[in-house]
C-alpha cells in the first residue's frame, strides 16, 4: 500500500512491457516483487498485460463490493464480478476517494455489464486487486484458469520448486533446445584454428616448348674461392655458422626441487615350487540307498515318464528285430552267384601224390598228419598189411624191415625228406602243435614213442628246391643216378613195455596247453602254457594219460648209454615211461571192456578263451624238461571240461569223463562210469571228431553208416545216415565250412557231404584211388590253397585241392548249421515227448479195454452172442444171394 505510485505503472508502460518478449523466460516466478518492475521482465511479473489494470481496493471498498480479502475472495477464488453500475455509483458517491477513480474512464468505457476484479494476493500486478478492462480478458480469466495457469506452470516447469498454493500435477517437459550463448570460450578456439586469411594464390609456371631438349654444353668452373679475385663469379657461397647475439639466452636462476624417495625396484627370482599334484585319484560311483530309489520310483512323475517312454522303445526294439538296417547288402551280393557258377570247378583236383617205392609200397597208411608250422610238409605212417597170424609167421622178416614214418614235402614227390624210425609198426602219430619238433607215435605193440627232429627242422623248412638241385649236382658228378640220402631219425624215447598198452594203440592226441591233468584226472592250471601231456587209447580197453615231464623222484642219475644221433630231450623217460593215469573202460550193460578205437576230447588246442590266464610268473624251462609240479601248486580249473567221447571196435559211441572221484570205501580213485552209450554203427568206429565250429557236435563214422551227435542230447542222433553201399573207412570235418565233411569208402571214393544242401546223399562222390581210403585230413595251406590229404591202403598219399565252393563258407552258413542242429535237437525232444505221450495213451487204452463191463465177459454168453450174430449173417447172405439171383429161391416144399 505504501508504494502505490511506484507500483502502479502507467498503462503505457505496461504495454511496453507486454510488448517485449524477453529471451530469458526462466527467471523464477517467486514472490520477488518490486525489483522486477524496472527491469524488462516476464509478462506475468510486475508489468500486467494490456487489458489488466492493477487496482487498489481499500477495505471500505472491499466491504461495499463484498470482496473482502480472505473472506469473499480468496486465493483460490480470486474473481469477483462487479456490476458496472455499482462501480459508477460508487464513484459518484465517493468521488475522489473512490478506489475506482484512477480507472474511472476505463470503467465508463467498459462495454460489458459486469467487470471482473480479481484478487491479487501476490501483488503480481502491483496492487492487491486487478481489474480486467476488456471483455476478452475477463472471459479469458473467468474461463477455467487453465490458460493462465499453464503459462505459470510453464514458467515454473523448468524449476524444481513449486509456488505455494498451486497443486498441479508435475508434468515433465523435456528440455527444449535453446540457442547457444557464447561466453567467451570461442575466442580461444578460434585462436587455435588455422584458417586462411586470404584466398590461396595460384601460380603456374611453364616453359616454352621449343626450349625443351635444347642442346647443352657443360663447362667446368673452378671452385676455388680465390678465383673470385680474378673476376670469375663465385661458384659457391658458403654460409658459415656464427654465433648470433640475439639468440643467446641467459639462464636465469631457477627454482628446482629435489625429493628424496626410496627407489622402487622390481625384482624376481625363480624358485623351485613343489606343489602337490594329483598322482592318482580313487573314486567310486555315487549311488543312492534302496529306500531313496523306491521313494523316487513312487512319484507320479516317474510313472508318467515310464509310460511316455514305452512307445518309443517299443518302436525302436521292433524296428531292430524286423530288419537290420546296417546290413551290408552290397558286400554279400556276390556270394550267392558264385555258388551257381562253374559246376566243373566243384570237384577235388589232384594236386600231388606221394609214394615211396621202397618204404611204402604195398603197405597201408595208418595215419597222416600235416606239419603244424611248415607249409607243404606232411607225414605218413606205414604199416604192413598183415593179419595177426601172418605177423607171427613172418615175425623174423618183419624185425629186419624198419617201421617208419615218412615225412614228405611238396618239393620232392619221389623222395621223402625224413624218416622216423620206430620200434614197431606205427599205427598213429601226431606232431606236437606247439613244438612241431616233437612227434609222438603209438605202435602196434602198444608202446608209445617220441621223436625229436630239432636237428632236421632246417632241412624241412628249406626243403623247397635246394634238395633237388643237390641231387642233380650229385648225379652230374657221378654220372649215375644216386638217390639222395634220406636221413633217418631214431626214436628218442619209448615207454616202458609193462606199463604200456597191451594191444595196438589206436589213437593218440596231445592235451591242449591251457590245462593239465593231475593224477585224479582233474583239470588243473598249466603254468607253463606248454603242451606236456598225451592221451592214448588202445584196443586193450585202456585209456592212458602220459606226461612228458620227468617224474618227481629222479634222484639217481642213471648212466644211460648215449646213442649217437639221438636227441637227449626225453632221456629221462626212455624205457621207463609210465602213464600218469590208466583207465580201464568197463562196459556198463554187459561184461567186458570197451575197446576204444578213437577218442575225442572236449578241449581244443588254441581255444582258450574260457580259461583264465595262469597266475604267477611262468617258470623258465624248456619243453619237457620241467618237473611235474606238486599237486598243491596247481590250481584246479573248473571251466575245463574233461569229458570225452570214445568210439569202440563194436561200433559204440561212449561219453565219459576223465575226472575220477575218490571212492569212499576203498579210498582209491574211482573210474567214472560212462554217462552215455549208444551203438549206432555196425562196424568199428573209424572216425570220431568234433565239428571245428561247434564243439558239441560230433561226427562218428563206422561200419556202413555215420552219425551226428550232440553232446548232452542223449535221446537220439541229430542225423544218422542210411546204410551206404560201401563200408566207410575214414572221415573228417572240413576245416573251413561248418556244414561240410568228407568221408572215405572202401573202394577209394571220397564223398563230400553238405549238411545244408542235402542229408540223404553226398554232395559229391569222387574216386581218388583204387584201394581203400584209410585217412582223410584236410588242411589250410594258404588262403588260396586248401588241400586235403587222402591216404590209401597201398601206401600212396594223394593230395587234392579243395575247390572254392567247398572251402568258402557262405555268409549265413554258420548260423544255418546252428539252426539245423537246434532244429534237430528240438525234433528229438519233440519225438521223445510224443513217444511218452503215446505210451501213456496206450496204457490208458489198455486200461480202458480191460475195464469194460464184466457181465458180458463170461464165455458162454460170448459164444451165444457170436452164434446169434453168425446166424443173422447167414440169413442176410442168403437173402442177398436170392436177390442177386445167384441162389434159387427156396421152393416151398410140396
Amino acid at each position: 500500500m505504501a508504494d502505490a505510485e511506484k507500483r502502479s505503472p502507467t498503462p503505457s508502460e505496461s504495454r511496453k512491457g507486454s510488448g517485449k518478449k524477453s529471451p530469458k523466460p526462466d527467471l523464477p516466478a517467486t514472490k520477488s516483487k518490486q525489483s522486477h518492475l524496472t527491469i524488462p521482465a516476464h509478462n506475468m511479473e510486475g508489468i500486467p498485460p494490456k487489458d489488466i489494470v492493477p487496482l487498489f481496493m481499500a477495505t471500505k471498498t472491499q466491504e461495499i463490493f463484498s470482496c473482502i480479502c480472505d473472506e469473499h475472495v480468496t486465493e483460490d477464488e480470486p474473481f469477483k464480478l462487479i456490476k458496472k453500475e455499482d462501480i459508477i455509483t460508487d464513484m459518484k458517491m465517493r468521488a475522489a476517494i473512490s478506489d475506482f477513480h484512477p480507472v474511472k474512464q476505463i470503467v465508463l468505457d467498459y462495454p460489458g455489464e459486469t467487470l471482473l476484479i480479481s484478487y491479487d494476493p501476490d501483488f503480481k500486478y502491483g496492487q492487491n486487486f486487478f481489474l480486467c478492462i476488456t471483455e476478452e480478458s475477463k472471459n479469458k480469466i473467468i474461463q477455467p484458469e487453465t490458460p493462465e495457469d499453464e503459462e505459470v506452470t510453464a514458467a515454473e516447469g523448468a524449476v524444481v520448486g513449486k509456488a505455494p498454493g498451486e497443486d498441479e500435477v508435475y508434468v515433465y517437459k523435456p528440455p527444449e533446445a535453446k540457442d547457444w550463448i557464447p561466453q567467451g570460450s570461442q575466442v580461444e578456439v578460434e585462436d587455435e584454428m588455422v584458417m586462411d586469411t586470404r584466398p590461396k594464390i595460384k601460380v603456374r609456371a611453364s616453359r616454352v616448348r621449343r626450349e625443351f631438349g635444347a642442346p647443352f654444353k657443360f663447362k667446368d668452373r673452378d671452385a676455388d674461392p680465390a678465383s673470385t679475385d680474378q673476376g670469375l663469379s663465385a661458384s659457391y657461397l658458403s654460409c658459415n655458422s656464427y654465433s648470433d647475439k640475439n639468440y643467446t639466452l641467459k639462464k636465469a636462476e631457477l627454482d628446482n626441487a629435489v625429493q628424496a624417495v626410496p627407489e622402487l625396484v622390481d625384482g624376481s627370482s625363480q624358485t623351485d615350487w613343489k606343489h602337490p599334484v594329483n598322482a592318482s585319484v580313487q573314486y567310486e560311483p555315487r549311488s543312492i540307498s534302496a529306500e531313496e530309489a523306491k521313494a523316487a520310483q513312487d512319484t507320479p512323475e516317474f510313472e508318467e515318464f515310464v509310460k511316455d517312454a514305452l512307445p518309443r522303445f517299443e518302436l525302436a526294439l521292433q524296428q531292430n528285430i524286423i530288419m537290420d538296417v546296417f546290413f551290408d547288402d552290397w558286400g554279400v551280393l556276390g556270394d550267392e552267384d558264385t555258388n551257381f557258377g562253374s559246376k566243373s570247378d566243384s570237384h577235388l583236383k589232384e594236386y600231388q601224390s606221394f609214394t615211396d617205392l621202397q618204404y611204402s609200397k604195398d603197405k597201408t597208411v595208418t595215419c597222416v598228419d600235416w606239419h603244424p608250422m611248415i607249409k607243404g610238409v606232411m607225414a605218413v605212417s606205414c604199416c604192413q598189411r598183415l593179419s595177426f597170424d601172418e605177423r607171427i609167421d613172418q615175425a623174423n622178416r618183419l624185425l629186419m624191415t624198419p617201421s617208419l614214418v615218412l615225412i614228405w614235402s611238396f618239393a620232392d614227390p619221389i623222395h621223402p625228406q625224413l624218416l622216423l624210425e620206430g620200434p614197431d609198426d606205427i599205427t598213429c602219430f601226431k606232431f606236437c602243435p606247439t613244438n612241431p619238433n616233437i612227434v609222438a607215435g603209438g605202435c602196434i605193440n602198444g608202446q608209445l614213442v617220441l621223436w625229436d627232429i630239432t636237428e632236421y627242422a632246417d632241412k624241412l623248412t628249406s626243403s623247397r628246391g635246394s634238395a633237388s638241385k643237390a641231387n642233380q649236382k650229385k648225379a652230374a658228378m657221378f654220372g649215375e643216378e644216386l638217390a639222395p640220402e634220406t636221413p633217418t631219425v631214431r626214436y628218442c624215447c619209448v615207454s616202458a613195455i609193462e606199463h604200456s598198452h597191451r594191444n595196438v594203440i589206436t589213437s593218440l592226441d596231445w592235451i591242449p596247453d591251457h590245462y593239465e591233468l593231475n593224477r585224479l584226472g582233474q583239470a588243473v592250471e598249466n603254468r607253463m602254457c606248454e603242451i606236456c601231456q598225451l592221451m592214448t587209447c588202445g584196443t586193450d580197453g585202456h585209456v592212458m594219460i602220459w606226461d612228458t615231464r620227468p617224474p618227481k623222484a629222479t634222484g639217481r642219475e642213471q648212466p644211460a648209454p648215449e646213442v649217437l644221433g639221438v636227441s637227449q630231450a626225453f632221456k629221462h623217460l626212455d624205457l621207463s615211461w609210465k602213464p600218469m593215469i590208466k583207465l580201464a573202460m568197463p562196459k556198463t550193460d554187459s561184461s567186458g571192456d570197451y575197446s576204444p578205437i578213437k577218442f575225442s576230447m572236449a578241449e581244443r588246442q588254441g581255444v582258450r578263451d574260457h580259461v583264465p590266464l595262469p597266475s604267477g610268473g611262468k617258470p623258465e624251462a624248456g619243453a619237457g624238461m620241467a618237473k611235474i609240479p606238486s599237486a598243491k601248486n596247481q590250481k584246479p580249473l573248473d571251466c575245463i571240461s574233461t569229458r570225452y567221447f570214445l568210439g569202440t571196435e563194436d561200433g559204440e559211441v561212449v561219453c565219459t569223463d576223465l575226472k575220477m572221484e575218490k571212492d569212499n570205501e576203498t579210498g582209491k580213485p574211482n573210474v567214472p562210469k560212462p554217462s552215455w552209450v549208444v551203438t549206432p554203427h555196425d562196424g568199428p568206429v573209424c572216425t570220431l571228431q568234433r565239428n571245428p565250429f561247434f564243439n558239441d557236435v560230433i561226427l562218428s563214422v563206422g561200419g556202413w553208416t555215420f552219425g551226428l551227435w550232440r553232446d548232452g542230447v542223449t535221446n537220439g542222433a541229430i542225423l544218422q545216415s542210411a546204410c551206404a553201399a560201401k563200408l566207410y573207412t575214414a572221415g573228417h570235418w572240413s576245416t573251413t565250412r561248418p556244414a561240410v565233411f568228407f568221408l572215405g569208402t572202401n573202394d577209394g571214393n571220397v564223398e563230400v557231404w553238405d549238411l545244408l544242401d542235402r542229408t540223404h546223399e553226398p554232395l559229391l562222390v569222387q574216386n581218388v584211388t583204387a584201394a581203400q581210403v584209410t585217412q582223410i585230413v584236410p588242411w589250410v595251406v594258404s588262403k588260396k590253397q586248401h588241400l586235403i590229404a587222402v591216404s590209401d591202403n597201398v601206401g600212396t598219399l594223394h593230395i587234392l585241392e579243395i575247390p572254392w565252393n567247398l572251402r568258402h563258407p557262405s555268409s549265413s552258413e554258420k548260423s544255418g548249421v546252428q539252426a539245423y542242429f537246434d532244429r534237430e535237437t528240438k525234433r528229438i525232444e519233440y519225438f521223445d515227448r510224443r513217444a511218452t505221450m503215446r505210451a501213456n495213451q496206450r496204457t490208458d487204452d489198455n486200461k480202458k479195454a480191460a475195464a469194460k463191463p464184466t457181465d458180458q465177459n463170461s464165455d458162454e454168453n460170448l459164444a451165444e452172442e457170436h452164434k446169434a450174430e453168425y446166424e443173422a449173417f447167414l440169413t442176410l447172405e442168403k437173402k442177398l444171394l436170392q436177390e442177386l439171383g445167384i441162389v434159387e429161391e427156396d421152393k416151398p416144399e410140396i
Partner: protein
Amino acid sequence: MSEIEETIKRIQSHKGVIGIIIVNNEGIPIRTTLDNSTTVQYAGLVHQLTMKARSTVRDIDPQNDLTFLRLRSKKHEIMVAPDKDYLLITIQNPSE
C-alpha cells in the same frame, strides 16, 4: 508301481534285450536289471552322452529338444529315452 513293473517287463521281454537301466537327473541309477558294476558304468557314461546330445540339439535350435537317442555298435544297440528328470536306457542285441 505295478504299472512300472509291467512296463519294464514288457520292454525286457522283447527279443534281444539285454538290460534296462533307469537313471535320475544326477546320473544315479535308480532301477536296473543288470549287475551293479555294469549298471554304474552305463549310467555314468550314457548320462553324460545324453546331456551332450541334448545340448547339441538345443544349441542348434532352442525350440527343439532331444526325444530319443540310439547308439548302434557292432555288438549291441543302446537306446536312451531322456526326460526332464529321468533317463531310461535299454541295451539290445539286435541281430541274433
